[in-house]
């Protein structure tokens, strides 16, 4: 394991996540959480890549870890779980691959007399890498939420977290954390 590389990626992943946190209008006080989420995601991905995993598999594990961590701490933080997951994953969005893929397809289309299939193969490879990496990120983030919902505790935890933080709670509100008839009916 190359430790300087690990710290480098974690630090710049955190900075990128914080920068995009500002772009997404996350409150200034919540930015340290954005830094932490980006650093966590990049740390896991770097370790997985260093262990010989593919970019797609490493991105999946990183997103899964981030999603699980956000589920665990959501009741203790003043930023939505969704926001934390999104900004943490933003540094792993394969925008560069997507751009290379489309540029490659442009190049293939403008070749007058193609002498080699290499540009086409490279463009297709970049396209699939971008698609699979986004798929891995989305699936990794969604899995903890879907699993928690199957267990029926996600909503109750959200309610409890809001009740603990007391943000904007109406005065004299002493009602229990009952998720309500709608959620009972749907089993959410």
């Amino acid at each position, binding site marked *: 394991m190359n430790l300087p590389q690990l710290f480098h990626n974690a630090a710049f992943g955190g*900075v990128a996540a914080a920068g995009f946190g*500002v772009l*997404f209008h996350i409150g200034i006080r919540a930015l340290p959480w954005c830094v932490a989420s980006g650093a966590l995601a990049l740390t896991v991905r770097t370790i997985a890549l260093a262990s010989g995993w593919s970019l797609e598999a490493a991105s999946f594990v990183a997103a899964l870890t981030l999603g699980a961590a956000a589920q665990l701490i959501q009741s203790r933080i003043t930023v939505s779980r969704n926001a934390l997951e999104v900004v943490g994953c933003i540094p792993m969005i394969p925008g*560069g691959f997507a751009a290379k893929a489309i540029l490659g397809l442009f190049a293939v289309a403008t070749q007058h007399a193609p002498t080699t299939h290499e540009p086409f193969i490279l463009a297709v490879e970049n396209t699939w890498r971008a698609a699979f990496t986004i798929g891995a990120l*989305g699936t990794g983030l*969604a899995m903890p939420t879907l699993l928690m919902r199957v267990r029926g505790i996600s909503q109750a935890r959200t309610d409890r977290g809001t009740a603990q933080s007391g943000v904007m709670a109406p005065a*004299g*509100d002493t009602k229990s954390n009952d998720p309500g008839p709608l959620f009972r009916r749907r089993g959410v």
Partner: protein
Amino acid sequence: MKTFTTRESESLPAKSATNAPMLKLSNLQGRGSLEEVAMLALEFGRLLMEAGATARSVEEVTAQVASGFGAERVDLRVGYASLAITIGRGPNGISRMRKVGPLGVNQSLDYALRTTAACIERGSWTVAEARAELDRLARTSSHHPDWIVAPAVGVACAAFGRLLGVDWAGIGPIFVAATLGQLLRRQLASHHINVFVSTTVVAFFSSTLCGLGARWAGSATAPTAMTVAVLLLVPGVPSLNALSDILEGRPTLGSARAVWVAVILVFITTGIWLAQSLLGEGR
């Protein structure tokens, strides 16, 4: 924002006598008519969609709002450009539809709306109080000023550059190009320029500026830097939302988002391609 509604009594005059009590149903547990509750729930949904929430979040929050005011049944259809809701209590029901504006990202507003909806569900707010709170949130939710956002985007893109292997000489030009690109993007948005045209213009501007700067600074990774400088335009939130919506059983909305993401990527790449053609890079 224009509101589209359908009154059963108008569309079905023969049944108006039967439907009249339903439409005149004025109270849900003494806290607002079906009409008021439906429109309030739709307003929460619309703001959430425009703040970049997933369909599941929109569905949960609108259900929280409606059930908080006594609705027993809530069915929501989340479309890319509109929301439709049917709420009911006992034998009575009402359906309403609401147009959704351009989808953006505002996590601060998203969080405030979720918190408010949770309070409505648990608390004893009246519809009027909830409406006032919603208007206040929409008006005052945290928007960082451009002079903070633009440098932050520049720093984020510069950090991306390091992650993607750009040398230190290329980092400064990325920061400057992305910062100015974000300012240009805001200017174009304020003049209501089409988002796809705006994307290509910003991508071309940032990529060209970064390419020139990287050459001047002696960077050996100028082509990569030119691509990194436009990563501020990559629609990360919509792409994750698209997949999330598909995975959670809403393929129509997910596909619509995915198509939008794909088209934006094509327009970003067009800007980069024009810049690289101009500077003779990437060949």
